[in-house]
């Protein structure tokens, strides 16, 4: 199947021959705990991230379940308003900063990037490990803050609320996030240098898998955006400590400046979350419809365009904050233009599917879900970028539903698809297909049941961030909470069958999906410690499929 890719003349001498099956791979060549905690191997670091983020995801999900439980009834009968504030802040902080932002780049990206471009590792393996420790330290600070009393500012830390009026652990949380930012910066820096300097011979820019393009665009945003939120959070901390009014109108400062600085990072951060799953989806759609991506260069360009646009639309979060009408019109127009590269992506996938040999394997089920949910999330974003309608929708559940469609329906579903896709490469084992499909379907159904009613209830005017609401909103809220339960079951299943498969799953073989990128054709499953025994030489485009593909024979190792 790899007729387009040939190997360099064999040059490795004296290295251990891994053989096929039962040989030396990155999982079993060292097994002590220290070998994991001190590893410089990008594959192991990816798994360290995966474990840490899964734990954070469960914790963030726990807080989400508290919120949904409270909202079953119109009265605040389960928890105090104060504790409710702390719950949605904890949910937001954990999910945004500790799960969604690093989710795909740090786990799947770390694992796949060097494999996809034919490198032995990322450019700076030590920095890569440091970034994981920085993540853990940041998480430690934040968890101490959340457990030791909580934070109730919302994940946005708006001033002067966060700097002047709150007595909760704002400072400690901000410290945690400040530290965490460097983890994101280091990962982004590492990826950019890796993509620029570590590609194997013949791997031109336009022969890279599209996931790599997405990681590149993401890394640019991480690199340019994260330092701004770091200095902004530092200013919030200094203002709390010293009583300087940099964002406090009573002391001459300007709270809108905070919003500008905050969203200058936090809007692009949305694209940090969604671009890598968009990239993963390319790999899924292409592999499981056995067709090259329609319009490869448009797709690569769209990733970069989204990265660029992401930096010039931030003020659409501030249409009701007293922005000048001219600035608001400008930002509204720019925001609409993000729909163009996003639309390019969706239509490109549809064109790829058209007359493809489409399968319904579980990664592909996630990809189908992704296309639909991302489209709904994106289209409802247009309601919010329209100045007139945004006045009505601002800070209602419509906004909550919109960004959950993009963040959960897009990013998490895309991640799940990617994880199922990459799993055989990671551990050399297949997960059981039936529960995997069940999980994909449950997540899709549960997700829609949870969040579609929130569009309606938001349209009717229910504001976000209150633990009580008028009686007439109860039916929709009960639907939403019921959906959250289904969604929870959908997430729980992979937590059971994926770890199970590591030990008991069917052996996957080198390329169970019949994919054509280097990570599948030129590495073992699981890969050897240095990925490639011989540096591959690429002579053609990344996606080129045999028309006939037999999964059974692929699993048998051919």
């Amino acid at each position, binding site marked *: 199947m790899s007729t387009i890719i040939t190997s*360099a003349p064999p*040059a*490795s*001498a*004296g*290295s251990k021959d891994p053989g096929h099956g039962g040989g030396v791979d990155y999982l079993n060549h060292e097994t002590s705990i220290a070998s994991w905690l001190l590893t410089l191997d990008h594959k192991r670091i990816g798994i360290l991230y995966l474990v840490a983020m899964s734990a954070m995801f469960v914790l963030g999900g726990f807080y989400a379940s508290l919120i949904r439980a409270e909202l079953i009834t119109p009265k605040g009968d389960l928890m105090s308003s104060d504790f409710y504030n702390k719950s949605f802040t904890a949910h937001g902080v954990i999910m945004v900063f500790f799960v969604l932002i690093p989710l795909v780049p740090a786990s799947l990206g770390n694992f796949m990037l060097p494999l996809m471009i034919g*490198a*032995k*590792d*990322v*450019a*700076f*393996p030590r920095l890569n490990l440091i970034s994981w420790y920085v993540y853990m330290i940041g998480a430690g600070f934040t968890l101490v803050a959340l457990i030791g009393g909580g934070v109730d500012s919302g994940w946005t830390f708006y001033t002067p609320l966060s700097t002047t009026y709150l007595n909760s652990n704002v400072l400690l949380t901000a410290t945690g996030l400040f530290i965490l930012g460097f983890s994101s*910066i280091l990962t982004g*820096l*590492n990826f*950019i*240098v*890796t993509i*620029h*300097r*570590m*590609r*194997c*011979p013949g791997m031109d820019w336009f022969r890279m898998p599209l996931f790599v393009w997405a990681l590149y665009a993401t890394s640019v945003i991480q*690199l*340019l*955006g*994260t*330092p*701004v939120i*770091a*200095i*902004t959070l530092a*200013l919030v901390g*200094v203002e709390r400590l*010293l*009583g*300087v*009014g*940099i964002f406090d109108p009573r*002391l*001459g*400062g*300007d709270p809108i*400046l905070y919003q*500008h*600085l905050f969203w200058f990072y936090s809007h692009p951060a949305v694209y940090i979350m969604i671009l890598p799953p968009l990239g993963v989806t390319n790999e899924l759609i292409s592999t499981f419809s056995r067709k090259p991506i329609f319009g490869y260069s448009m797709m690569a360009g769209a990733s970069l365009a989204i990265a660029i646009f992401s930096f010039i639309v931030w003020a659409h979060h501030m249409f009701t904050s007293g922005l000048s009408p001219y600035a608001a019109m400008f930002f509204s127009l720019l925001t609409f233009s993000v729909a163009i590269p996003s639309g390019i992506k969706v239509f490109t996938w549809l064109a790829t599917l058209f007359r493809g040999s489409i399968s319904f394997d579980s990664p592909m089920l996630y990809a189908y879900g992704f296309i639909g949910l991302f489209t709904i999330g994106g289209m409802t974003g247009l309601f919010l970028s329209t100045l007139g309608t945004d006045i009505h929708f601002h800070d209602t559940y419509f906004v909550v539903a919109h960004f959950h469609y993009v963040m959960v329906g897009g990013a998490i579903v895309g991640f799940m698809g990617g994880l199922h896709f990459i799993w055989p490469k990671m551990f050399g084992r297949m997960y059981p297909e039936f529960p995997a499909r069940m999980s994909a379907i449950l997540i899709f159904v549960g997700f829609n049941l949870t969040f579609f009613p929130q569009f309606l209830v938001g349209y009717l005017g229910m504001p976000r961030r209150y633990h009580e609401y008028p009686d007439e909103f109860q039916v929709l809220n009960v639907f939403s909470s019921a959906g959250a339960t289904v969604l929870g079951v959908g997430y729980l299943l992979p937590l059971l069958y994926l770890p199970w498969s590591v030990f008991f799953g069917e052996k996957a073989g080198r390329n169970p999906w019949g994919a054509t990128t280097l990570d599948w054709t030129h590495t073992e499953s699981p890969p050897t410690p*240095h990925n490639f*025994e*011989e*540096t591959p*030489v690429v002579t053609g485009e990344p996606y080129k499929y045999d028309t006939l593909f037999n999964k059974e024979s692929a699993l048998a190792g051919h």
Partner: protein
Amino acid sequence: MQVTEKKHAQEAHDDHGHGHELAHHFVSVEQQHDAGNLGMWMFLTTEVLFFGGLFAAYTIYRYKFEKVFEQASNILDPMLGAINTIVLIFSSVTMAFAVRSAQQGKSKAIVAWLGATIVFGGLFLGIKYFEWKHDAQLHVFPTSDFNWTWAREKHSEGEHGGHGHDSHGPELKGYIFNSPVVPANYVESDARNPEAKQAKLFFFLYFSMTSLHALHMVIGFGVMAVIMAYAWNGYYTANYYVPVESIGLYWHFVDLVWIFLFPLLYLLGAHLGAGH
């Protein structure tokens, strides 16, 4: 980018021969050098944006409170700022020589030039220390200690050759640099004056930007000390000197930040005052 295929795993495996010069995951020394170099440039990009948040805040408040920013800027001493600028440029020159020495593989010269860089950098921070001490006497630290009425009065007294604190009652000492304690009527006067808050914003920006800059210098000292120790032991060769080059880029960046800070903070008063 077309990587030459000549070097390969083989080389990575017997790299004990040339020790640290080529890490296992790079194909060639050139690739490793390019990667380190690009990495440093990327890091400096993040630094630009890190400082950028403060520069953005400065721009906005400078626009909103032009008059007070002019007065506040006049409190600072442009002569000391100018001397520091020259000192820092000298440190950049010595740093450039250090990098040149590294390219030529002259280990001892690296140590000497980096040492000279630290000396100039230390001189800069020494001058900064005395500036900050003077600022403390004027009560312009943006804490509860801040007093704009006092600062303006003492500053104009200083300019006209008066001896500030002699005329003001008992000599109580404050908590920063033993600065004199501000009498209660000055605190009241500040509370009535909205410009005091605006001036405090200027000095907040002044101290946060210059101290963040100073922090970068101190971190630079630490890294230079480590590199000096390695260089002393002949760790760097004409083939492998990425760390020296990287600290060079870093130091020039730190220098460049100051080139922006100096006019924005010290010369602003003269610039705005000239129009009146």
